């Protein structure tokens, strides 16, 4: 138990601090490299520097993250994407309403993000690890089949249709690589994802562009390596 608390605190402080600083840098991009997400940037702007909005926005995701952590040990992407930046901002904005001096300042966001990150990660991991065994059995009995259906065949179908809807080039790359991937790895999703990547890049930049050629090379090597290690070539 103590181990979980200490490790969680370290993870939350380092990760929360760095990601909150990266999020503050979003307001200075593209001149400097930042990290976060466009939707995070949009959501931070939407809260308009109001600490209550930032806090309640984060709170909504905190509940769903807690449910997910308790059920499957998955804290969700929202901890770092939404809870840490928004609660970090809320703490700073409660004292000073000027976003330029708070939310946009990587040093202040790093400090508040580290504190929030540490608290949130410790809380979620502790709660998830103390739930009674009976409840975690129910959770895994329910989540097991649901997630395995999701992984196959629901996800392949969703990604496949997204590729097909994104134009002929992307559709063909997605279809071919998805099929190859289903043969080699047993799941079409990796292939469809890479197909979307290649197809869209080819459509936008043409096959002569370096980036498309590099992508195709990476994908070919990736699949040959996977096929080799999984003994795919022995099936012929």
């Amino acid at each position, binding site marked *: 138990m103590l181990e*979980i608390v200490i*490790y969680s605190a*370290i993870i*939350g402080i380092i*990760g929360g601090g*760095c*990601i909150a*600083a*990266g999020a503050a*840098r*979003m307001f200075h991009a593209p001149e*400097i*490299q*930042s*990290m*976060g*997400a466009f939707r995070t940037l949009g959501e931070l702007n939407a809260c308009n520097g109001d600490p209550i909005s930032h806090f309640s926005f984060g709170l909504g995701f905190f509940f*769903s993250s807690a*449910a*997910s952590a*308790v*059920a*499957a*040990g*998955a*804290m969700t992407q929202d901890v*770092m*994407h939404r809870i840490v930046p928004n609660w970090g901002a809320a703490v700073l904005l409660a004292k000073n309403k000027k976003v330029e001096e708070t939310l946009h300042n*990587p040093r202040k966001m*790093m400090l508040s993000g580290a504190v929030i990150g540490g608290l949130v*990660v410790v809380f979620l991991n502790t709660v*998830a690890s103390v739930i009674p065994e009976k409840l975690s059995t*129910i959770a895994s*009995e*329910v*989540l097991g089949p*649901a*997630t*395995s*259906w*999701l*992984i196959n065949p*629901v*996800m392949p179908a*969703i*990604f496949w249709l*997204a590729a097909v809807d994104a134009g002929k080039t*992307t559709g063909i790359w997605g279809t071919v690589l998805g099929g190859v991937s289903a043969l080699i790895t047993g*799941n079409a999703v990796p292939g469809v*994802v*890479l197909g*979307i*990547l290649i*197809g869209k*890049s*080819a459509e936008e*930049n043409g096959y002569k562009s370096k980036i498309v050629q590099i992508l195709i090379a990476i994908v070919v090597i*990736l699949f040959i390596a996977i096929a080799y*290690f*999984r003994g795919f070539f022995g099936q012929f």
Partner: protein
Amino acid sequence: MEDKRSFGQKMDEFLLKDSTFILLIMGAAAAIFAGTFMYLKFGTGAFNDISIVAMLKEGIDTGDYAAAAAFAAGFLIARILEGPLVGLLDIGGSLQTGVGIGLPALFLSMGWDLPFSNFFVALLAGAVIGLVLGAVIMIIRKLMPEGVAVGGTSVMMGAGNATGRYLAPLIVLAAASYNVYAGLGAVIGAAAFYKWGKEMTGGAILGAMIIGGIFI
């Protein structure tokens, strides 16, 4: 020469330098990679959504990590190429999925569990991965000509977000076929969370756990 700036001002300046990004991504990658170590060791702590963590779980259960590794590699490659071009690295695809799920799946599929031998090794391994990614991003930033773009990330993200929506109905179906109380709980939880405008997935699981926990 006496430097008149305070420590805070120097720190502000340092954190707004382009190359400081490498330090930040190292910290972020270390935390996320160590989060996956927590998940492997304690069963909780992965920084990703249930549907994606499930792919890693499937690898742990069956020993077949190919799907998780290749899936996450797609997101990692896309985001690492896109990040430097727009000046904003998406941590969801690159770090949380790529570093948190893809690389661990890749390492474990090769039977290489050294990075997961203990917490501090995992933290260090994550920092090294972050250093490599940060360096690659900085190099791409310097070298990449203007106007070249990696396409498809919006299509991938759209599909990724659509996937999450399917989980709630699937959970209700799974709960219903597992046990009548779990099923009833899932239905009530999903309906209540939908009414309150919260993620139905969480409601379905919590409902199944609460009603199931009381009556089973």
